[in-house]
């Protein structure tokens, strides 16, 4: 029971946050939660051994799907979030048959290229998408109420955390961990490697699409430059690396740490946070390759208690 106390406290804290924090702080936390969800989705794919650089791509697809279905077809903005998720998931499903034949650096580069392809396609469909100048929505979701928006993002992020924990606690964990460790052994143990890769690729892409949709509904504006931005690719990766990959807690810790540091540094020096970001990432990767979560955990609960715990 004891190990649930901290998570429950954190959830309660995040639910009452709008009542204790001002608008500025709430805005920062909303932004951190967005990146946290992206970071977890990237990590979930990495658990299969596939390094994806497509996070911003599927984020952008979801953003556009959501924006356009509201603007062109008059969909309800809340419903459009689902449309964003489904659209990214469906595209990932079909692309998966091709890109999931690739491994390692070839997979990584191809997913990065896909992001660029999505962006180019959208730029070249000005009648539908507004081209490179983008599309403006008539109104932000919930009329831009920051508290309601915060709760919307919180629900999405908690859902993603839940999915990540399902991935850690069920047979999915055994399948994707095996695939990452040794694909030949995985196949010889009866694991349908492609099926699991496709499943994880579709789920994580749908999450990215959902987050993209929520993001665009929050700001009521979408354009290719800001949605297919490296921000939505590199920051989530940095957060997962700093916090610790292959876990749920790692990206959570990394997102809050880097998110808060970045916010502070932005006030000190415009874009100065990017330099410090780079330094932190280099430091962590060189000296703490497991991220900061595992060393903390081992110190707190004592080393040697890892055995037999599938959630370790």
């Amino acid at each position, binding site marked *: 029971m004891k190990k649930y106390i901290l998570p429950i406290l954190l959830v309660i804290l995040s639910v009452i946050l709008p009542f204790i924090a001002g608008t500025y702080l709430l805005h920062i936390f909303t932004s951190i939660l967005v990146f946290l969800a992206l970071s977890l989705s990237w990590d979930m794919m990495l658990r299969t051994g596939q390094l994806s650089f497509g996070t911003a791509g599927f984020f952008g697809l979801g953003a556009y799907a959501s924006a356009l279905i509201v603007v062109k077809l008059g969909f309800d903005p809340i419903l459009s979030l689902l449309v964003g998720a489904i659209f990214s998931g469906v595209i990932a499903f079909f692309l998966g048959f091709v890109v999931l034949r690739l491994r390692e650096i070839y997979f990584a580069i191809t997913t990065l290229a896909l992001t660029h392809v999505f962006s180019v396609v959208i730029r070249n469909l000005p009648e539908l998408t507004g081209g490179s100048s983008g599309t403006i929505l008539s109104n932000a979701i919930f009329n831009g109420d920051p508290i309601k928006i915060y709760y919307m993002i919180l629900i999405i992020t908690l859902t993603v955390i839940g999915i990540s924990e399902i991935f850690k606690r069920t047979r999915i964990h055994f399948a994707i961990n095996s695939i990452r460790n*040794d694909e030949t052994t995985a*196949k010889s143990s009866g694991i349908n490697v492609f099926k699991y890769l496709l499943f994880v690729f579709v789920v994580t892409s749908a999450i990215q699409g959902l987050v993209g949709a929520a993001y665009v509904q929050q700001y009521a504006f979408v354009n290719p430059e800001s949605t297919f931005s490296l921000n939505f690719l590199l920051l989530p990766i940095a957060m997962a690396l700093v916090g610790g990959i292959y876990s749920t807690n790692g990206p959570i810790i990394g997102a809050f740490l880097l998110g808060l540091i970045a916010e502070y540094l932005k006030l000190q020096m415009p874009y100065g946070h990017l330099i410090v970001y780079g330094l932190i990432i280099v430091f962590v990767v060189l000296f703490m390759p497991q991220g900061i979560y595992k060393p903390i955990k081992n110190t707190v609960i004592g080393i040697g208690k890892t055995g037999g715990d599938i959630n370790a």
Partner: protein
Amino acid sequence: MPRLKADKILRRFGGLIAVNNLSFTVGKDEILGIIGPNGAGKTTVINLIAGTLPVNKGSITFRDEDITKYPAHIRTQKGVARTFQIVRPLKDFTALENIMVGALFGKGNKLNEARKKSLEICELLKLKNVNKNVDELTVLELKKIELGRALASDPKLLFLDEIMAGLNSEETWELIEIVKGVQKTDISICVVEHIMKVVKELTDRVIVLDRGQIIAQGPYSEVSQQQNVIAAYLGEEE
């Protein structure tokens, strides 16, 4: 019907024919030995039957079903299991979790069933450090994990690829006894082995491969006396 029937299977690697129109069967309740000099094609035969590699020609029938076109994971689910010559443990898992993978996906067990069954297999294998990570285990323990993962998938046909290699005499005998015990549970076994005392001790029948073809077959005691077998191993006198 034999449990496994390989009919004229052929596999090329570029210009080299590794397995050449090979036909053999494995009976129910049988331990078949596959021996031959290095490069004879023994491991390739396992890869072809287990589906790790596709055959170029020929057919494979397992329990009256043509499995030639099935991918490796389906063959495992149907009951063909194998161990690897060079152990391939899943390094981010404990010993027990490694074995559970076979039960979860080879057999399709649920998590708690798989855990229970894997613990039973650990007991059968006399594997004690079930909760240690694999990088802390000895060679014998790693071999047992290979065997355990294969057994957990509930196979009807088990390929053991040089599972005794690298073990000392005492450990070898321990594993021989375990394999004998396994065979009594309605699992047909194929052993590829270089250590002749293991072949002699375990097998009912052997086939001798050289350059991808069978050059002799029969009980080990007979085959080991044949001139062409000795020549294949030692080279012919001019």
